Structures are given as structure tokens and as C-alpha cells.
């Protein structure tokens, strides 16, 4: 079930079918009960009419009725029958309508008692009532009779059937109307999704830059996330394109030098080799710089959070191994839960470069501090400072240090591009890198990220 619309429609159809079916059954049942009850009432009233029409002779004994107000009793096979039986069950009288039929509709009842029963006889289905009567004559003698009236159920059935037919056709029509309405509501309700889809399609085709329609508020979270994702992708793409462009162009210069160098006599002298090596180093740094610049993820659309502590601990463990001879004493002083919002690889890169720098230039002590402070409505700023007890950085050299690919100290093994790389990543996140001097006596590098 891939489509939301068909899912909702299917669910609605099932619920509607269940509901309408149950309603129909309940109404049908109720109608049957009331039709039966009204038939019982009618039969009962015929009994009273029979009693009223019965006469008595001189001594007060019952004479069966001669004339009954309901003409159907007099018409043969009318479907309405009456009968009076003696207390021993012997039929005493029956209505004209029952003439020629040997049908016994009475069931023995004691006086005042009645019984309804449904029965089939001689190809007819009848609904009958038997009523017990005690007839008192003038000599206070009582004679017991059973009065019975029966009616063919054909009429009742026809009534129920026609009720059913009209009930179900109405319910069916209602269901169809409801389903149609449901379908229309769904189409209308899901229309914003379709418009997001078609807007995305337009972006794919390059006919739009981002999702700029007005969407219902349930969708704005999604669409703004999509917009930042698109924006992020575009930024990354631009960065890649620029990096590639810069890379290609900046490699041309050392290549040109090497080219002209190949054509010179001095290619095999030691001075020549040194110059060649210098160009190789330059090319390596250019490649590294551009590669890393392109690899920075930057602030992502959906900011992930990275805890500082584990990242720093891993780096310190690794650097301790590399600088084992120095036995550097590293103090980590972090606010609990100090968190960076961005890519873990970027954070590792920044902290790796800064810490490596500190390890390289320190005499034996490095201190790392991280402070986070609430900022704005829901934001948080993060400040990380890394200081060492080395010689520090000459204020006049700071700009040079931060220039790409320049080494401050050629004799210390390593890559001069570390700090400038860190600064580049920090600036992608809109942060700042300050270089100053700290209380340990050496350089103090302070990174500040606004949220």
C-alpha cells in the first residue's frame, strides 16, 4: 500500500462499510420487531371483536358470532381466519374464510391466557393467537372455550421485504455519496503534498531554486528542512567547484617552474634537486589545502550534535602516542555536556590541528578548556581554548601563521597548513579563531562558535 490516498481511502471504505452494514442490520431488526408487535396487537383486537360479536342464548350460553365486522373473515381464502374450539379441542365454529380447509389454528388455553405462534400448515405460513375464555351462564356454570385468530404472513413478509429494499438502497446511496465526499476531501487535503512534489520536480529540472510555495503548517517543517538541505547541497557543490578551479590553477605555477626547469642544465645539480623538491612540497600543500577545504561538511541542514569530550579524548590518546617522547601533560577542563553542532569530522579536524600544534610547540604542558553559554532564544555558543607552555607565537607572525601553507618553523616536522586549515573550517561554521598568549606562557588559541 504505497499511496497515502489509497491507504486512507481503503481504511475509510472499510469503516464505512462496517458502519452502514451494522446500521442496516439494526434498522432491519427493529422494523421486524415492530411489525410483529403491531400484528400481534391486530390479532388481539380481532379476538376482542369476536368476543363482542358472540351472542348468548336464553340460558346465557355462548352462540358463535354470526356477523363479524371485518369482511375478510367472511371471504374464503382471504388470509384472515378465526376459530372457536371447545375446552377439549373440538372445533365449535370457524369463520367463512376458513371454509373447506382442514386447518386447526387453535391451541388449548386456560381462561385469560394467550399464546402467539407461527406455524405452517397446508402450504400456508400463519401467525396465530389463541386466547382462553371462560363463558359464565346464568346458572353460574362456566364453559371453557379457546378463541383463535390467524393471519397469513404473506402480507407481513411483503411489508418487511419492501422496507428492506428501500432501506438498503438508501444506505447504499448514502455510502456512495460519503465515499465520493471522502475521496474529494482526501484529494483536497493531500493537495499540498502534491504541490511539494511538483515543486521538487521543478527544482530537479532546474526551473526553480527552492520550495517557495505557501504550505500548510504541518508541512513547513519538512519544506524548510528540504530547503536547507538543497541550500547545503548547493553550497557544497559551489565549494567543490571553486576548490577544483583553485586547485587546477594553483598547480599550474609549480608545474610551469618544473617545466622550465627540465629544460635547464642545472637539473642535475643539488641546487636543482632542492628547487624541484620545493615545487613538489608546494604542490603537495596546494593539493592538501584544496582537498581539505572541499571536504569540510560545514553546518549541515539538520544539525547533528557532537559531544566534545570523546573527540578530545581520542585525539589526546593518539597524540600522546605520536609525541610519546615529550610526555605531554594535558589537562582537559570541559563544561559538562559541551557540545558542538555540526559534523564530527570537521570538529576532529579543527581540534586535531590545534592540539597537534600545541603538542608540537609545548615544553610539556597543554591545557584545553571548553565553555558553553546559552545564547539567543534556544542557541548555545561554544568556546574552546587550547594553550601550551611553549614559546608562544610572535604577534607579528600571527598573520603569516594563518596564511595557507606557510610554515612558521621549518625544522619542526609537520605541516604548516594545520592552523590555516583549522581557521578555514571554523569560518565555514561562522566561528572565529583568535591567537594570543595564555597563562601557561605559550600560545593560546581560542575558537568561538556561535550557535
Amino acid at each position, binding site marked *: 500500500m504505497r499511496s497515502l490516498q489509497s491507504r486512507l481511502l481503503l481504511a475509510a471504505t472499510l469503516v464505512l462499510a462496517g458502519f452502514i452494514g451494522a446500521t442496516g442490520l439494526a434498522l432491519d431488526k427493529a422494523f421486524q420487531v415492530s411489525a410483529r408487535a403491531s400484528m400481534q396487537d391486530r390479532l388481539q383486537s380481532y379476538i376482542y371483536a369476536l368476543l363482542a360479536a358472540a351472542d348468548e342464548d336464553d340460558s346465557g350460553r355462548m352462540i358463535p358470532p354470526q356477523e363479524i365486522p371485518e369482511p375478510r373473515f367472511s371471504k374464503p381464502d382471504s388470509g384472515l381466519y378465526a376459530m372457536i374450539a371447545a375446552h377439549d379441542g373440538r372445533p365449535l365454529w370457524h369463520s367463512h374464510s376458513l371454509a373447506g380447509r382442514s386447518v386447526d389454528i387453535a391451541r388449548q388455553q386456560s381462561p385469560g391466557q394467550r399464546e402467539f405462534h407461527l406455524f405452517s400448515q397446508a402450504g400456508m405460513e400463519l401467525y396465530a393467537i389463541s386466547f382462553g375464555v371462560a363463558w359464565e351462564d346464568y346458572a353460574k356454570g362456566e364453559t371453557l372455550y379457546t378463541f383463535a385468530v390467524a393471519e397469513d404472513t404473506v402480507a407481513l413478509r411483503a411489508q418487511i421485504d419492501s422496507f428492506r429494499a428501500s432501506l438498503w438502497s438508501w444506505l447504499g446511496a448514502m455510502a456512495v455519496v460519503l465515499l465520493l465526499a471522502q475521496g474529494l476531501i482526501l484529494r483536497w487535503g493531500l493537495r499540498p503534498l502534491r504541490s511539494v512534489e511538483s515543486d521538487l520536480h521543478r527544482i530537479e529540472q532546474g526551473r526553480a531554486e527552492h520550495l517557495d510555495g505557501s504550505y500548510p503548517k504541518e508541512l513547513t517543517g519538512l519544506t524548510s528542512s528540504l530547503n536547507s538541505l538543497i541550500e547545503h547541497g548547493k553550497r557544497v557543490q559551489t565549494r567543490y567547484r571553486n576548490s577544483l578551479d583553485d586547485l587546477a590553477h594553483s598547480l599550474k605555477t609549480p608545474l610551469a617552474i618544473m617545466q622550465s626547469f627540465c629544460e635547464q642544465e642545472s637539473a642535475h645539480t643539488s641546487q636543482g634537486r632542492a628547487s624541484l623538491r620545493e615545487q613538489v612540497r608546494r604542490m603537495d600543500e596546494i593539493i592538501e589545502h584544496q582537498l581539505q577545504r572541499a571536504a569540510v561538511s560545514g553546518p549541515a541542514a539538520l544539525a547533528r550534535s557532537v559531544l566534545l569530550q570523546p573527540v578530545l579524548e581520542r585525539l589526546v590518546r*593518539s597524540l600522546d602516542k605520536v609525541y610519546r617522547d615529550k610526555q605531554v601533560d594535558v589537562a582537559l577542563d570541559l563544561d559538562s555536556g559541551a557540545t558542538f553542532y555540526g559534523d*564530527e569530522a570537521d570538529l576532529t579536524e579543527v581540534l586535531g590541528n590545534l592540539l597537534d600544534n600545541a603538542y608540537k610547540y609545548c615544553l610539556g604542558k597543554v591545557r584545553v578548556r571548553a565553555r558553553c553559554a546559552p545564547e539567543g532564544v534556544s542557541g548555545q555558543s561554544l568556546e574552546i581554548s587550547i594553550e601550551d607552555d611553549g614559546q608562544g607565537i610572535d604577534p607579528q607572525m600571527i598573520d603569516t601563521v594563518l596564511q595557507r601553507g606557510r610554515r612558521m618553523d621549518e625544522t619542526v616536522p609537520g605541516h604548516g597548513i594545520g592552523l590555516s586549515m583549522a581557521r578555514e573550517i571554523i569560518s565555514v561554521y561562522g566561528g572565529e579563531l583568535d591567537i594570543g598568549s595564555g597563562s601557561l606562557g605559550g600560545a593560546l588559541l581560542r575558537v568561538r562558535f556561535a550557535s
Partner: protein
Amino acid sequence: MHILIVEDEARLREHLRDRLRKNGYVVDVAADGEEGLYYGQEFPLDLAVIDIGLPKISGLELIRRFRSNGRHFPILILTARRNWRDKVEGLETGADDYLVKPFRFEELQARLNALLRRAAGWSKPVIDCGPISLDTGKQTVTVASNPVELTAFEYRVLEYLMLHAGQVVSKAELTDNIYDQDYDRNSNVLEVFIGRLRRKLDPDNRIEPIETLRGRGYRFRRETGREC
């Protein structure tokens, strides 16, 4: 010193092998992870240089297998990637240091020296034994602050002896660490080297730094330098 190089790039591998051999190391080379694993498990190594991007078994996996099999020789990883995530991963896996390509041979040599020295238990790059001082970083030797000129092989013999100062180093062990397996063990080249070292370090026979223990080997005197 016995070094294994596992590197799939043939030119770099041969270049490193030739230059390290020239500097007096015994060098085995492997072109992929499986071959590297074989050498690492079958031969006693003092150090391995492993490229991260290897065919068959990756460099990191190779290091992991060495370490889980209880092989503790120092490992230097070579990587084309400079990013910290990869460096940290390599070091956490069990490598001891890393070097990013391209690198100068001198840089590699310096890292190897430092790793070998640390593995022998010396935390400082300069080993002082009395008047004799060996700088493993610069690869120079001084006696009472006067520089002594040594050939690459002489230096390698002395370095091995000084790194194991106070311990008996057999002739076979010394030969293994200075020549490849196919070297003729019966020749007396080693004695010649030791003789030359003695003359260069101690022309007047006053400190006698290298003892000969007949039938067992040589020992660099610890008492020569109390500060060892």
C-alpha cells in the same frame, strides 16, 4: 634492524627498500596485505612500515591482525590522507606513528629511528653512555663531544649495541640485523666492523666500550656510562 615494508606502489616500495638497505637495515618488502601478514608472522621484525591502502588485506586490518596475534613491533603507517579522523583511526588500531605521503626520505628515517629507539626502551633521542653519545635523530656519534665519522654499517652495529647496552648481543643476532638472510655467516666481516668501531671510539684503549664474550657475543658496557 629488521624492517618490513608493505606498500603496493612498486616504485616507492623499491625506493624505500634500496635506501633503507643502504643505511644498513635488513629490509623485507611485501606488495599486498596477505604477503605482509605472512612476513610479519613468520619472521622476527623490529619494525613495520605499512601503507593504509593495500590490496587484499587493508593496512588497518593488517595492523589489527598483527596486534591480535601478539605481534608488538612498532608500526609506522603511510597514508595519502592527511585528515585527523584517519590518523586517529590508524593510531587507535595499533600503529605507533604515521607519515603522510608524499614525504622526504629523511623524515621517514627520523621517524623509524625514534620508533626503534623507543621500542628498545630509550625515551630520549640521544643515548649517552659515559663519554660516548649516540644521537639517533641526527645519526651522529661523539666521544667526549668530539664527532666520530662512521660508515652506515658501522653506525648500525654501534646503534644496535648501544640500544641494547648491558645486554649480551650474539653474533648471529647482530648479523641478522645488519645483513639479509643470504649473507655468509662464516665470514669475519662482523669482527672487522667491531675492530674498526673499537679503534674509532677508543683509540687509546682507555674505556673499552665493547666487550667480547667468547662464544656468546658482544656487550656494550653499561658501566661505561652510568647515566644510561
